């Protein structure tokens, strides 16, 4: 006969889990999603965004349109057009800036290689989710204005990482101070 002690033992496990789910937190791990949300860990990543300093998203953008991320992006979801002119960045140095910076987040696979290869700490990973749209193409194409987010925002979502980045940038700025004339940015 099929039904024997082993099956009953299994049933006991099921019963213990069922009843236990009322008393033990370990056995009931479900989160009732739209009402409650589990907090995202610090390192959590989703889609890239562009960091700007100061209050002005257009002027303070750290990106200098070097196009390294565009070249290294494995699914090729970044599209950059470099500006013709230069304008002062947040440190007062004249820099190129991206005239167009688009990321197609329907293509992006959240690998964060763009973040790793960026020499200017200009692109970072966001934590936003719930990005579904009713339209497939333009709605999922993030323009420069959608992507630009402040350094404060970056500090909010990745506090430890942002601290380290700020410290590194300050150290680099302090090192560069003695040079009198502003050097042209590396473009490779």
């Amino acid at each position, binding site marked *: 006969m*099929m*039904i*024997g*002690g*082993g*099956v009953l*033992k*299994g049933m*006991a*496990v*099921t019963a*213990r*889990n069922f009843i236990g789910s009322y008393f033990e937190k*370990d*056995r009931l*791990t479900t989160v009732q999603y739209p009402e409650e949300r589990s907090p995202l*860990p*610090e*390192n*959590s*990543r989703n889609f890239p965004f562009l960091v700007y300093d100061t209050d002005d998203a257009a002027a303070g953008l750290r990106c200098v349109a070097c196009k*390294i991320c565009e070249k*290294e*992006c*494995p699914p090729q979801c970044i599209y950059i057009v470099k500006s013709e002119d230069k304008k002062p960045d947040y440190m007062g140095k004249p820099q190129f800036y991206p005239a167009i910076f688009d990321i197609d987040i329907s293509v992006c*696979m*959240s*690998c*964060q*290689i763009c973040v*790793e*290869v960026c020499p200017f700490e200009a692109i970072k*990973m966001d934590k936003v989710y719930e990005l579904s749209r009713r339209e497939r193409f333009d709605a999922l194409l993030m323009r420069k204005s959608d992507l630009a987010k402040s350094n404060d925002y970056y500090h909010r979502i990745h506090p*430890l990482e942002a601290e380290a980045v700020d410290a590194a940038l300050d150290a680099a700025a302090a090192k560069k101070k003695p040079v009198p004339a502003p050097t042209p940015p590396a473009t490779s």
Partner: protein
Amino acid sequence: MTSRFEGELLEVSMGPQHPSTHGVFRMNVALEGEVVRKLKPVFGYLHRNHEKIGENTSYLGSMPYTDRLDYFCSMTNNWAYALSVEKLAGIEVPERAEYLRVILAELTRLVNHTSLLGFLLSDMGAWGTPLMYAFRERERMLDLFESLSGSRMMCDYMRFGGCRVDLPPGWMEQARDIVDGFPGFLDEFEKLITGNEIVIARTQEVGKLPTELAINAGITGPGLRASGVNYDVRKVDGYGIYPRFKFRVPLGEHGDCYDRLMMRVLELRESLTILHQAMDQLPEGPIQNPKIKIRAFKPPVGEAYGRIEAPKGELGFYLISDGTGNPYRYRVRPPSFINLTVLEDMCLGHTVADVMVILGSIDIVMGEVDR
């Protein structure tokens, strides 16, 4: 009715939407009554051109794609690829990174084997319940992966010459909690399997894989060891720092589905011993070889084959470099695909219902089979 079809074979197309084919996999089965007489696997529904993409992107650019091969075990996929490139370019890996790799690979093995056990019971008709218990445990480990690498499944964590980020504060304590609590879960879960009469009736003497055939067909991983062949790349190659750890390689005797099932349970216990040792010995230090440039990485001309013992078997990457930024040839040796080739031999003479159990016990992921 019966007399009209006497002796004739009925062709049935199983899949690609069948819930227990573990993805989009189709089998053309020729049946005599309920007994399988022929079985032709049909692959390719999930083909994504992985290898050609690998030849057209930079070495680093292939790393996130390897996550998507076997999407249950992205950490081991990363490791296998990183190992091949490190072999190709002769890169040293810092000690701490090696330990982290072992810890993450063994956690991945826990993830894979627990969910496999759940899926297998689900295939046998225990719909849902054991799978949910398995997924509950898996989710805890995926939380670990997320807090470390940023993503639950597509970790993209390892880099040539080390790992990407160091452990966040509190990670090790959380990991220890999970590893310490795991045997309790496993004992409970085993009560659902080991002595269960239904599991025994459905798996013992079903889908036998003879030792000879397993060796000749190039089967690797728990499927091979269930047939009694002592072959574990962790022991044979001793890649990374595995020779430093004490663990046993469980071996089966009969090569049937029950042995393959129990092989997973036993391997889980061995993985736990490795995890305990690795966590105790984890040294401080850098996690990334500072000599490795992340941009414009160009290994010297040559070729390399790096392989590791992935949870499903031997996962290898074969790379030929012509000195440029892209590999000239990028080939994956996926364990699932090669283990799947003996499906027909294992299924002949069994009923249709057994095919699902046999397929489940092979442990395939279609992302890896079709690439």
